[in-house]
C-alpha cells in the first residue's frame, strides 16, 4: 500500500534543517539569556536528550515497520486511551506550528514589514505551507535536499563575514565559565526541539532502508548540534555574553555588525529569506503529519482535503495566540517544552505496554 519514498539521505538533510531553523531563528536569544557561556554545552546535552527520545520512538516503530502508529496504537492501549492521547499529540503539534508562525510574523513585522497587518503575513505563510503539505510527503524532503546546501553555505559565510569583529580572547570563557547548572535550561528547551525528530515514528512506513534510521539520527543530530554551536560561538565572541544576553535577535544583530561600508552590509534580508524557506519546509512537514494522523483517526481515505481547514485553524489561533511579545514569552516559558516532551514520550507508554503484553502472551503460550 505504502511506498518507500523517503530515502535516508533525505531524512538526514530534512531533519538537520528541521532542528536548526527554529533554534537559530528564534531560540538563540533565549538560549543566551538562560545560559550565556554555557549555551554550547547546553546544546550538546539537548542533542543527547533528543537522540534518546528519537531512539525510543524508532525502537518502537521497528516493531511494526510497515504499519502506521496511529492505526495500530489502538490495538495496544485500547481505543479509549488511544484517541485522547493522539488528540493531545495533535494539539501539541498544532501549538508548535502556531508558535512558529507567531514568531515569524513578529520578526517580519518588527524589522521588515512594519505596517502590514499580521493576518496578511500569516495568511500568506499559511498558504505556502499548506501548498507544500498538499503535495505529499515527498515534497518536503525534496525541498529540504535543495535547501540543505544553501543553508550550509550561509552557516559558513556568517562567521566568516563577522570574523573581523571577533575578540578571540573571549573564547576562553567556554572552558572556564561554562557550567552544567547554567547549561541545563538550554538543554531542556533544546532537548524538546532535538526530540522533534521522533516524528519519524509517524512516517516510518514511508522510509526506505529503515534499518539505517538510527545511524541517520545520530548523523543529523550531530550536524545540527554542530551548526547551532557554530552560530552560538561567533555571537558570544563578537558580542560578549553580557550584550548577547540582552538582545532579542542576536543572530540578526551580528549580521548587521558586518563592517559598515561593505556592500554586504544589508545581508540580513537574504538570510531571512533563507530562514523563511527552511521554516516553511519544517512547518509543512508538521502540518502534513497532523493531517495524516487526523485522517487516520477519522478513518478518511485521503489526508489532503484536511490540510486547508487545519491550516486555517492554525492561522486563526495564531492571531489569537498573543497580542504582544511579552505576553507571548510569559506563555512560552517552559510549559510548551514540557508539553512537547510529553507528546514525544507518549509512544514510550505504548512501547512499554506492548512489550509487557507480548511477554505475557509468550508466558501464556509457554504455560500452555
Amino acid at each position, binding site marked *: 500500500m505504502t511506498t518507500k519514498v523517503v530515502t535516508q539521505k533525505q531524512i538526514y538533510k530534512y531533519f538537520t534543517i528541521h532542528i536548526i531553523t527554529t533554534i537559530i531563528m528564534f531560540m538563540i536569544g533565549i538560549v543566551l539569556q538562560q545560559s550565556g557561556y554555557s549555551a554550547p554545552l547546553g546544546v550538546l546535552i539537548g542533542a543527547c536528550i533528543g537522540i534518546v527520545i528519537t531512539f525510543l520512538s524508532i525502537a518502537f516503530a521497528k516493531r511494526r515497520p510497515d504499519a502506521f502508529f496511529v492505526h495500530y496504537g489502538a490495538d495496544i492501549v485500547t481505543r479509549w486511551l488511544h484517541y485522547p492521547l493522539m488528540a493531545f499529540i495533535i494539539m501539541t503539534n498544532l501549538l508548535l506550528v502556531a508558535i512558529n508562525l507567531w514568531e515569524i510574523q513578529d520578526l517580519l513585522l518588527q524589522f521588515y514589514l512594519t505596517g*502590514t497587518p499580521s493576518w*496578511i503575513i500569516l495568511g*500568506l505563510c499559511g498558504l505556502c505551507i499548506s501548498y507544500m503539505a498538499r503535495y505529499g510527503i515527498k515534497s518536503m524532503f525534496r525541498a529540504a535536499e535543495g535547501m540543505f546546501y544553501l543553508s550550509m553555505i550561509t552557516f559558513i559565510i556568517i562567521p566568516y563575514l563577522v570574523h573581523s569583529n571577533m575578540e578571540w*580572547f573571549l573564547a576562553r570563557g567556554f572552558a572556564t565559565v561554562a557550567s552544567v547548572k547554567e547549561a541545563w535550561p538550554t538543554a531542556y528547551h533544546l532537548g524538546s526541539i532535538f526530540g522533534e525528530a521522533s516524528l519519524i515514528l509517524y512516517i516510518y512506513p514511508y522510509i526506505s532502508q529503515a534499518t539505517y534510521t538510527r545511524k541517520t539520527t545520530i548523523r543529523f543530530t550531530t550536524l545540527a548540534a554542530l551548526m547551532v554551536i557554530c552560530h552560538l560561538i561567533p555571537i558570544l565572541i563578537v558580542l*560578549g555574553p*553580557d550584550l548577547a544576553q540582552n538582545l532579542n535577535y542576536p543572530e540578526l544583530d551580528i549580521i*548587521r*555588525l558586518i563592517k*559598515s561600508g561593505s556592500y554586504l552590509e544589508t545581508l540580513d534580508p537574504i538570510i531571512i529569506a533563507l530562514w523563511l524557506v527552511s521554516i516553511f519546509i519544517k512547518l509543512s512537514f508538521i502540518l502534513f503529519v497532523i493531517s495524516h494522523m487526523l485522517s487516520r483517526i477519522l478513518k478518511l481515505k485521503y489526508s489532503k482535503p484536511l490540510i486547508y481547514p487545519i491550516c486555517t485553524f492554525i492561522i486563526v489561533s495564531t492571531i489569537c495566540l498573543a497580542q504582544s511579545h511579552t505576553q507571548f514569552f510569559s506563555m512560552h516559558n517552559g510549559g510548551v517544552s514540557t508539553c512537547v516532551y510529553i507528546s514525544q514520550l507518549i509512544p514510550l507508554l505504548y512501547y512499554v505496554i506492548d512489550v509487557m503484553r507480548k511477554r505475557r502472551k509468550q508466558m501464556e503460550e509457554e504455560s500452555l
Partner: protein
Amino acid sequence: MRKLTISLLLLMMLTGCWSSEELNDQAFIGVLIIDRNDDGIEVTFGVPLTTNLASGETSGSASGGEVFGYFSRTAPTLEEAMQKVQGDLSRRANIGQNRNIVVGRRFAEEGITPVLELAARNPNIRMNTNMFLVDGYAKDEVAKATVTSERFFISLLNKYVEHRTALQTTIKDFMLSKASGGDGLLPIINFSDNTEGAMVGKSSTVGTGGAAIIKKGKLVEPILTPDQTSAAQSIRNQLGNYFFSIESPTENGWIGLYSTSVDVKTKIVKKENKYHIVIKPTSEVEAIGNNSTMNFAIYEDVKKLEDSIDQFSDQLHADTMHVIQQTGADVFHFDRYMMVKYPQDWRKIKDHWREYYRDQLAIDIDSDIRIRRKGSTVRSFKSQFIEHNEGD
C-alpha cells in the same frame, strides 16, 4: 491549473499594498546630533536634501541651494524632540541609513544613556553606529562647519572612521560588559579657526581632535590629547598610519618614523596575587627622515634606535593608561579579560570592579617595534652632503 493561476495572480496583487516605502517620501537621516540646553534635549537631524542634490548634479554645481540641511527641535526628552523634528519635515524621517551620532559636550556631561538606550532598542539603528563628541554645542558647530574635501559632513565622519583617522567608538562599545558598562572613549570632532586646521583659509573646517573619557555614560575630565588618543587607538587595535619622530640614539637630532599599522595583543596575568593587564603593541616602522648622524647600516645603532622607539611607545601608552585609569573608567573593558580567565576571582571583585581597576590593577606595556625599512638612502643627507664638507 486554472485555480493555481488565479491564486498566483491574486498573490501578485498583494505585494506593495502594505509597508510600501516610497523613496520620494523619505528623508534619510545622515547624522543625528544631540545636545542639551536649559530647555531640555535638542535633537537635530542632518538630512541630505535630495531635491537640491539632483539639480546640482545635472548643472555641475549646487546652484539650487543647500545640499544638506539640519532640522532641530528641543523638548524635555529625546523621543519628544524627535517627534517635534518629524513634525517639521515634509518627508518621513528614516533613520535606517544613519551611521553617525554626534553629541554635544553638555549632553555628554549629563549622560549619553538616553542615546544608547534609543540606539540599542530601536531596530532601525544599527549597533555599529559611530559616536562622536563636539566640545561645545554640537548643532551650532556642525551646522556652521565648512565641508571642503567631501560633499557632505557625514562623508567626512565616515572617511575618518574608514581610514582610521579618528578613534572609532560605536554604540556597541558602551555595552560590552556589565561591570564596565557605559565606559568608553568618544572621539572629538574639532572645528578649526582660520589659520590652522583641516583647510587653511576657510573658517570652521572639520578635523579630528582628542577623545573624551566616558564613565557610566557620563563625560569625565580630563580630555585626552591627540597623542593620547592615538595611543588609545593603538590599544584598541585601530591605529593606522602614524608619523612620529624620536631623538636619535647617537647624537643630537631626530629621526622621523612612520608606522603603517600597530598590532596590539592584550592579556591578563596574575603575579604575586596581583592582576596585571599586559598590553603588547607590535609594529614594523619605516624610517622616513634622519636629521642626525646615525648610520642605518650599523646594526648596533639600529638596535639602539629600536630600543628607544620601544621606550617611546611604552611611555606614551603608559601615560595614556595612567590618565584613563585615574578616572576609574574601564574604557577598554579589561574586565572581560579577567572574567574569562579568572572566573572565580572575578566573582569576588566584579561588584567593585571600577575601584579595583583604578587602584589595584597594574598595567604593563611591552612594546616590540622593529625598523623594517630604512628608506632609499643609507646615510642622512646631513652627514653625507653637508657635514662631509665641513672640514673645508
